[in-house]
């Protein structure tokens, strides 16, 4: 398996201008809501606020809903979110966490509950690329890939998953606890780490 060089990551297909546009739009489109809420079944956990191109939400009963342009499509536990080629989307969770999906991205909205800690929002990223902003301070969010998990500690980061599961984490600001089954690596601002099947995550590089 070939590990991508950091320079390759810098040239991936993410369109920076579109991305910034989506981020700014996300900031103003929805009022910030930092109050944690129970992720009860049947209760919306967030909203899809904007999409460019094909963006689909597959509910747990198989019903498919689409969003084109600006909107407020409610999201629920168990939903599968999917973008097609040349498409992007922005969503916001009830606790203020913003997630932008790049093209050909697919993840499922899940959660974990622990007594005394409550719920942690979990996104299971099957493939594609997400940008995450936890909006001021630590929020209980983890992103699982086929080979690794990124646990957020108040931060902004980008996670890219290749078809073979190789996961590339780029931390824009803050700290992300990045781990595979073979070890954990805290990754700080402006650092990159790679997760591959059967290996510990790589040491942070620029």
């Amino acid at each position, binding site marked *: 398996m070939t590990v991508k060089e950091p320079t390759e990551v810098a040239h991936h297909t993410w369109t920076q201008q579109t991305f910034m546009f989506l981020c700014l739009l996300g900031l103003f489109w929805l009022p910030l809501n930092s109050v944690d809420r129970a992720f009860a079944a049947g209760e919306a956990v967030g909203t899809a606020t904007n999409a460019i191109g094909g963006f689909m939400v597959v509910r747990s009963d198989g019903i498919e809903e689409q969003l084109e342009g600006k909107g407020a499509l409610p999201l629920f536990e168990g939903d599968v979110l999917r973008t097609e080629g040349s498409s992007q989307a922005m969503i916001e969770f009830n606790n203020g966490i913003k997630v932008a999906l790049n093209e050909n991205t697919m993840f499922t909205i899940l959660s*974990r509950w*622990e007594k005394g800690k409550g719920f942690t929002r*979990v996104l299971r990223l099957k493939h594609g690329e997400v940008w995450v902003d936890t909006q001021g301070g630590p929020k209980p969010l983890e992103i699982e890939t086929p*080979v690794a*998990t990124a646990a957020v500690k108040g931060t902004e980061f980008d996670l890219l998953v290749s078809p073979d599961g190789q996961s590339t984490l780029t931390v824009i600001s803050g700290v992300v606890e990045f*781990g*595979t089954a073979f070890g954990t690596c805290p990754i700080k601002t402006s650092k990159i780490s790679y997760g591959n*099947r059967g290996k510990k995550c790589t040491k942070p590089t620029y």
Partner: protein
Amino acid sequence: MKDATAGFLMFGGVLVWGLFSSCTTLPDKPQGLTTKVYIANESSSSVSVVDGTTFKVLGEIDTLNHATHDLSLARNGKHLWATNLASGRISVIDTDAMETIASIYTGKRAHVVTLTNNNKHAWVANIGDGTISIIDTSIYRILGTIPIQGGPMGIAFSRDGKFAYVSSKDKFVNVVDTMSHRVIKRIPVGPNPHFLVLGPDGRIWGTNTGSNDVYMIDPRRNEVVSTIEVGPAPQQIAFAFKGTSGPNAYITVAGINKVVMVSGNSPTPAVLGQIDVGEGPNGIWANSVGTRLYVGHTKSNDLKVIDTGTNQTLATVPVGRKPIRVVASQ
């Protein structure tokens, strides 16, 4: 010199105090077995707890999920891990408090959970997703998934932990290299291979629940080295002794409502006997010294305690609905 002497005396004092204090924590006589038996009740979505010595029900734990199916107990007995087929989630149970303390989504039709030999990870077979989820048992975080062809059903690890064996509905056992998390071999077995367990001789024992036989895999060759017919719909396996005989494999055979005893250490296993039990025997576990069997019955909703010395039933304990898996503390 004075300082050295004083230091030495202080060290000696600490040592004596340490020895004394550790001695005072030892019991004044050997303690009896304090086995706790845990039973997963699939249709009650709960875990019954039974005292393995008095056979009294100690409680029933709500798993906070649906269709509780399989159980795996940490070596120290503190945490019990339970799969929930309908929820696709794992429940983590604090056995002292007898309550669920975490709920983790792993995948569709979460079927079986097995702890790695060092108990650091829990491997969960998700039939519906065709994956194994790997959970860090200290922080309950999923660290990765392993794709398994054909619908993963059961999981067991080799003695040295180098291999995981995963049975799949397409009549294979998949050998996973635990260092690379890749399937390195697929071993053909029989119809609906379900339960897998590490035997006392280091072989992996499995049941072909869709047929009538049990197979044994040698981890040195990763091949089936022996099979034996035990009756229709064999379910689960435990290892225990009958007097001087053993360790023997005790297999619940649902099609004939019996537990079948097979020689456990022989290269060519033989059926040694049968024990009549209740309707729908499924989960089975032996106490740590191999003198008692705890058998769950999915139709009569109870647990039978069997004395392996006489094959007699010592107690029948009502539990929840459809008790399907039984484990016990050391």
